[in-house]
């Protein structure tokens, strides 16, 4: 028995694409629109990176070629890699697919923090433009996408190229962390009633785990980049051996990020395939639970395998063995997934469309890439393959033949939902075959060349190596693939110009996004669905859940969506992102611009905070539905704090690694002063007491008392900062500067970043205290104080660790 599906499209005012003019896209906070913006931007950058790739292929087509100079070649391979990873695959997987499909699949009206979502996008765009603007000022970054130290030090790479790269990546990291935090909270807290974790679509599982990986992987990278920027701008020696440091530290920080990153690129692709293969095989996904657990397991293990990128660095037999083992273990859950996809197709009644073709090609190509991965998980073998074209073949099979093909499958799959239009199948098959054949022509021979000794990252090679034939073959293949991409773009344009004909559920889908019109209305769901099983929509259409399907409408959510309140658009996200970009520009151009940027960021945050009247209130209470057991903002705050822990862990780890290795004194042992710091510690602990009293007072409605406690807390924070300023000046007088020795640089960086957090906390609390004068923090908004408080206590617990680890344990060196 069929249920009435609204097949008529929503046109005009309620269609998310149509509402408002072009300018309204600048202030949009609708997840679907933000998804579209991510998609367009990433495709644009894919064009750039593709052109860079084709130019490199022309250069390599013949031996001893001089089409590109070595310098330009270095810029191109650096920016091709950086672009594809950070500006194409990652934003497509999370920013585009995550935004377009995830909220619809969990039956939500938007993500948890719509304005934060817009903010992530704008930071991403400005960060990307910032990085690319390097080409206008003396050439693009040229030290590789992995930016190995000490090549990146100012001495070896002068000029601003690496500055743009490093600062650009820090900015992009902000975007990724904010975006993923948002997705994490959304999936944890915004699922439709009845959608337990084990009923979530597998795509959502993958977005969840990928988001967690971003939250844990980017802080170490950010720390690594901060060290790099410090080395380049103020002459510290985090990565240079002259002061007793080691460039290998960068490799660790980079790959602690880097391997989870490859799963950040792969997981959304796994998710997409797990939707399209069952849909077009007309069978449910084989082994749902195994798939969900494998996803979680991959996320977990991927954090402990980074050393497989460093076998050649001489980590020693024990570390080599451990990383080799963990890398081989990660192949197991990956294999489970491949098995599930294959088993799903077994005996299927295939719908042989373009989306399905891309999905099948994904499974085959990804498996090839995974297998070569297991090959170089073996250290002895990796020493042969490392730095050769074999590695280039491996990661192109997993990222290009894998993620990119999955994304094409996903675009063909969700296109009708997003646009209300169908894509032409003949053009689809044409671009599939061109891209597929071109891809394999380009990358398969790289295995052969790699094993034959051809090194990666070289701009040309001699004729005597006999590498010319395959290189020419690859170049031809690359152009075939390029033509395929062009056909794909034509197919998109052709579809956009066609009439809207897509029905709500063109594929007879299984998940909730197919239960609403194509394109969806702004509010997505007129009624929030109640979920009774996995494959929720399939059950509604064909299953037993039909009878028990309760009307889920809340009183305010009238039929047809009238009276649904969606949050208003906001100008602050784009403003804040512009401020952040100014901070970066200022760092390179003129420091004063940085301060303007900081001011804009601060004002925009305040504006955003108080923009809606509901700041600091319990939204779930006001909405009166039972779908959200937790407060999203509090979940967000704790997630943020958890992610910050990894930031400080990376700083503390660096301090501990370099501890006692100074080549010149004075060292920690000789200079740290326990009495002064004990006093500061006491002050900070007491400030936490005042903070918690402040919160209790606001919760009781005693605003005056609460405000006074807040002032007290901030005051103690200032005393702490004063102590730190005194300590720093004293050390400076004794000759311990940031550049002086390892102790100086690691100590000031760690303690300084902590102090910066204290300073931000003081500003935060003072802002709240002053706002309370204006009646902006009444009892019902006590949550606002709670968030500030959580941050403040976090700063306190970090100090508890620093105090005992850095100050008190200094008597014992090398600990």
């Amino acid at each position, binding site marked *: 028995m069929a249920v009435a599906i609204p097949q008529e499209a929503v046109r005009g005012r309620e269609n998310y694409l149509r509402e408002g003019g072009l300018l309204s896209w600048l202030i949009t906070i609708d997840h679907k629109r933000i998804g579209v913006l991510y998609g367009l931007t990433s495709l644009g950058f894919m064009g750039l990176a593709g052109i860079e790739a084709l130019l490199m292929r022309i250069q390599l087509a013949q031996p001893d070629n001089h089409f590109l100079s070595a310098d330009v070649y270095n810029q191109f391979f650096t920016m091709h890699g950086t672009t594809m990873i950070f500006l194409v695959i990652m934003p497509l997987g999370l920013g585009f697919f995550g935004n377009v499909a995830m909220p619809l699949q969990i039956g939500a009206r938007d993500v948890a923090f719509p304005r934060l979502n817009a903010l992530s996008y704008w930071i991403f765009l400005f960060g990307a433009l910032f990085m690319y603007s390097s080409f206008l000022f003396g050439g693009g970054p040229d030290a590789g996408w992995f930016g190995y130290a000490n090549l990146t030090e100012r001495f070896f790479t002068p000029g601003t190229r690496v500055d743009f790269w490093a600062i650009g990546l820090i900015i992009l990291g902000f975007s990724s962390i904010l975006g993923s935090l948002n997705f994490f909270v959304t999936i944890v807290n915004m699922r439709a009633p009845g959608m*337990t974790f084990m009923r979530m679509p597998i795509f959502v599982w993958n977005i969840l785990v990928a988001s967690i990986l971003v939250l844990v992987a980017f802080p170490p990278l950010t720390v690594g980049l901060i060290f790099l920027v410090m080395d380049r701008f103020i002459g510290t020696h985090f990565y240079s051996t002259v002061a007793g440091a080691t460039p*290998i530290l960068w490799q660790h920080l980079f790959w602690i990020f880097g391997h989870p990153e490859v799963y950040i690129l792969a997981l959304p692709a796994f998710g997409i395939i797990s939707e399209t293969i069952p849909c077009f095989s007309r069978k449910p996904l084989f082994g749902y639970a195994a798939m969900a657990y494998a996803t979680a397991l991959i996320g977990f293990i991927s954090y402990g395998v980074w050393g497989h990128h460093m076998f050649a660095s001489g*980590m*020693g037999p024990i570390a080599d063995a451990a990383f080799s083992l963990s890398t081989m273990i990660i192949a197991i859950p990956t294999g489970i997934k491949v098995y599930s996809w294959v088993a799903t197709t077994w005996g299927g009644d295939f719908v042989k469309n373009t989306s399905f073709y891309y999905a099948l090609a994904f499974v085959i190509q990804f498996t090839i890439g995974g297998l070569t991965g297991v090959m170089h998980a073996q250290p002895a073998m990796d020493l042969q393959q490392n730095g050769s074209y074999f590695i280039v073949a491996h990661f192109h099979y997993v990222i290009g033949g894998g993620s990119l093909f999955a994304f094409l499958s996903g675009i063909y799959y969700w296109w009708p939902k997003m646009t209300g239009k169908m894509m032409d199948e003949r053009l689809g098959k044409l671009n599939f075959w061109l891209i597929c054949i071109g891809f394999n022509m380009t990358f398969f021979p790289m295995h052969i060349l790699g094993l034959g000794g051809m090194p990666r990252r070289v701009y040309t090679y001699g004729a005597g190596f006999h590498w010319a034939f395959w290189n020419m073959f690859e170049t031809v293949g690359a152009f075939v693939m390029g033509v395929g991409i062009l056909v794909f773009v034509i197919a998109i344009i052709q579809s956009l110009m066609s009439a809207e004909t897509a029905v709500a559920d063109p594929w007879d889908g299984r998940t909730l996004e197919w239960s609403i019109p194509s394109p969806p209305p702004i509010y997505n769901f007129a009624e929030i669905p109640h979920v009774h099983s996995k494959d929720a929509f399939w059950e509604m259409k064909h299953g037993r859940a039909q009878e028990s399907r309760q009307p889920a409408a809340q009183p305010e959510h009238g039929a047809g969506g009238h009276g649904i309140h969606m949050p208003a658009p906001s100008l602050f996200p784009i403003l804040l992102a512009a401020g952040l970009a100014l901070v970066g520009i200022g760092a390179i151009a003129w420091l004063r611009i940085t301060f303007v940027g900081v001011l804009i960021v601060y004002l925009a945050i305040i504006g955003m905070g108080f923009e809606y009247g509901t700041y600091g209130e319990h939204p779930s209470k006001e909405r009166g539905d*039972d779908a959200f057991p*937790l407060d999203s903002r509090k979940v967000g705050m704790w997630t943020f704090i958890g992610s910050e822990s990894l930031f400080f862990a990376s700083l503390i780890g660096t301090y501990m690694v370099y501890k006692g290795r*100074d080549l010149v004194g004075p060292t920690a042992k000789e200079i740290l002063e326990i009495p002064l710091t004990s006093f500061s510690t006491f002050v900070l602990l007491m400030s936490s007491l005042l903070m918690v009293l402040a919160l209790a007072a606001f919760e009781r409605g005693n605003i005056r008392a609460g405000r006074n406690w807040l002032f007290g807390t901030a005051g103690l924070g200032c005393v702490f900062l004063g102590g730190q300023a005194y300590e720093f000046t004293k050390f400076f007088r004794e000759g311990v500067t940031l550049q002086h020795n390892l102790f100086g640089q690691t100590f000031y960086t760690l303690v300084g970043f902590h102090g910066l957090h204290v300073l931000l906390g003081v500003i935060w609390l003072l802002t709240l205290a002053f706002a309370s004068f204006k009646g902006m923090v009444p009892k019902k908004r006590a949550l606002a104080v709670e968030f500030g408080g959580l941050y403040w206590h976090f700063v306190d617990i970090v100090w508890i660790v620093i105090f005992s680890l850095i100050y008190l344990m200094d008597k*014992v060196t090398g600990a």
Partner: protein
Amino acid sequence: MSTAQASELAHEHEEAPRASTRVYVEIAVVLTVLTVLEIWAFYVPAVQPILIPLLMVLSGAKFALVVMFYMHLKFDHRAYTAIFGPLLTLGAFIVIALMIILAYFLGAPPTA
């Protein structure tokens, strides 16, 4: 599911303060005592051999007290603990892994 969620909701929104001022002050006293103990351990030569484990226990206790009582994890929904706990553990993992791997790589420190 929805009834379970509803009861959790009720729990989350209980207006009763999570702990009395008295408890907060008591915690502050304990924190101070623990800090004094840490500093004492630092200055007393007899304690040197076990200084590191001792400090780890003491500061661990302080850390836990602030997180449980001042940050309310003891009273709030356990989902918050489930989020923070694993991330914190990964942080500790990074510190320890970096120390072990790079200590091996760099060899004995020059000043030791």
